[in-house]
């Protein structure tokens, strides 16, 4: 580690390493600081992505793909299953290997990656961020940089230390629990989504196959609705009822900021990417690809700003995001609010109506394709629009 860099990235998840990759590709001198001992571990994710989103960044490779997904099935509270026809494919990743690969791609461009390095503050002067403080090997080091990129996840504090308000509201935070379970009979090419008060109030439950009779089985509950019963308890009940013979290979907790993107994701000397900037699809909770898209935008802009020695360019990233996915996420956020008002009865009747249609008509065109692959639960709202 040196004392000074062009760009310091706090956090080595997909958004952070992708930002590092593209900043380094643009000629910047880049350091990534990861608090955990290993890139990609622990996994805190359902691990599903769509093919179209993935290939923008790297080619699908068996080594990080656990299962190829061809079908989606949505389960209403009364058990009615809706299977929309979809054309594209998706994947359930092995995030350990996937994140490693993203780290390697950043390193190949010249980015330096240091693990077990905990960023515990930012350095500020004249209202601008000029570096970070980091705990490393028992010491506290002050590292200078022209630009800090905060990619420090749902637990982000980099923005807050710099004076931005990045707190996630209780109705936007999805409180999640997931197990990777073995000895489960699942459809190996199908992702299941369960909706309803019983499974996950204010969220949904997922079963994503990971090959060889294993699956990620998890759920997310809106934090403002989990007061009486927490996510883990919902999950344990579901496992007991649906997969009593399963063995749990891993169990994890997680938080998903299913909100609109923060109003501002840059300030002088600082850019936020990924969960830290609330760049998650607010309906599906998916954040891998959108975090990587943001990382690419931020990395490129950072390199350009360094090259031209003009830090006012950082705002270009803000604008580019807000004009593209930021706008889309704001629209999805409005849809999410509609979906969350649905009671179990509403969901049941939507599912019942749809399942009456001949299977060939359950496509409802390309809108569905997009909705289901990228934003699984959006389909409910789309169905309502078609039925009303």
């Amino acid at each position, binding site marked *: 580690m040196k004392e000074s860099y062009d760009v310091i990235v706090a956090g080595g998840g997909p958004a952070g390493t992708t930002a590092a990759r593209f900043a380094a590709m643009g000629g910047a001198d880049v350091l990534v600081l990861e*608090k*955990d*001992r290993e890139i990609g571990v*622990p996994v*805190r994710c359902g691990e599903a992505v769509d093919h179209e989103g993935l290939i923008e960044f790297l080619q699908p490779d068996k080594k990080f793909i656990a299962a190829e997904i061809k079908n989606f099935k949505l389960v209403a509270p009364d058990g009615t299953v809706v299977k929309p026809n979809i054309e594209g494919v998706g994947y359930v990743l092995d995030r350990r290997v996937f994140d490693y690969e993203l780290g390697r791609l950043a390193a190949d461009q010249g980015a330096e990656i240091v693990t*077990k390095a*905990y960023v*515990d503050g930012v350095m500020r002067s004249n209202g601008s961020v000029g570096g970070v403080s980091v*705990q490393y090997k028992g010491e506290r080091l002050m590292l200078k940089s022209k630009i800090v990129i905060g990619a420090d*996840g*749902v*637990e*982000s*504090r980099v923005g*807050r230390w710099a004076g931005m308000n990045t*707190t*996630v*509201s*209780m109705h936007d*935070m999805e*409180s*999640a*629990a997931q197990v990777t379970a073995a000895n489960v009979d699942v459809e190996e090419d199908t992702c299941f989504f369960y909706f309803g008060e019983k499974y996950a109030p204010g969220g949904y439950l997922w079963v994503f196959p990971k090959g060889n009779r294993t699956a990620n089985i998890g759920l997310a*509950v809106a*934090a*403002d609705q*989990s*007061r009486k019963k*927490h*996510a*883990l*308890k919902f999950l344990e009940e579901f496992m007991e009822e649906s997969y009593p013979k399963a063995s749990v290979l891993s*169990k*994890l*907790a*997680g*938080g998903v*900021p299913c909100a609109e993107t923060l109003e501002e994701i840059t300030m002088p000397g600082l850019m936020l990417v990924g969960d830290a900037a609330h760049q998650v699809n607010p309906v599906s909770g998916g954040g891998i690809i959108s975090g990587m898209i943001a990382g690419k935008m931020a990395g490129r802009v950072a390199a350009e700003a360094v090259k031209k020695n003009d830090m006012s360019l950082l705002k270009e990233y803000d604008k580019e995001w807000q004009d593209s996915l930021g706008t889309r996420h704001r629209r999805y956020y409005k849809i999410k609010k509609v979906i969350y008002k649905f009671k179990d009865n509403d969901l049941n009747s939507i599912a019942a109506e749809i399942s009456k249609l001949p299977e060939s008509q359950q496509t409802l065109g390309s809108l569905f394709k997009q909705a289901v692959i990228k934003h699984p639960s959006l389909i409910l709202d789309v169905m309502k629009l078609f039925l009303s």
Partner: protein
Amino acid sequence: MIEIHEEKCDLCGCCVGVCPENCIDMTESRISIEHEICTDCRKCEWACPFEVFEFKHDRVVVKATA
């Protein structure tokens, strides 16, 4: 006061994300609360997927005045 049951904690960061006071610190291996800043709003307790937090009413100690 909010008490942490560290043995249940998976270090997921939900609590840090919702804390309005920015008073929860999470390193690679542990979380801690700065009690001087904490306002006992209990959002961490409610957002936690694993029931790590427990709210305990502060004990009022009445001293005898001799």
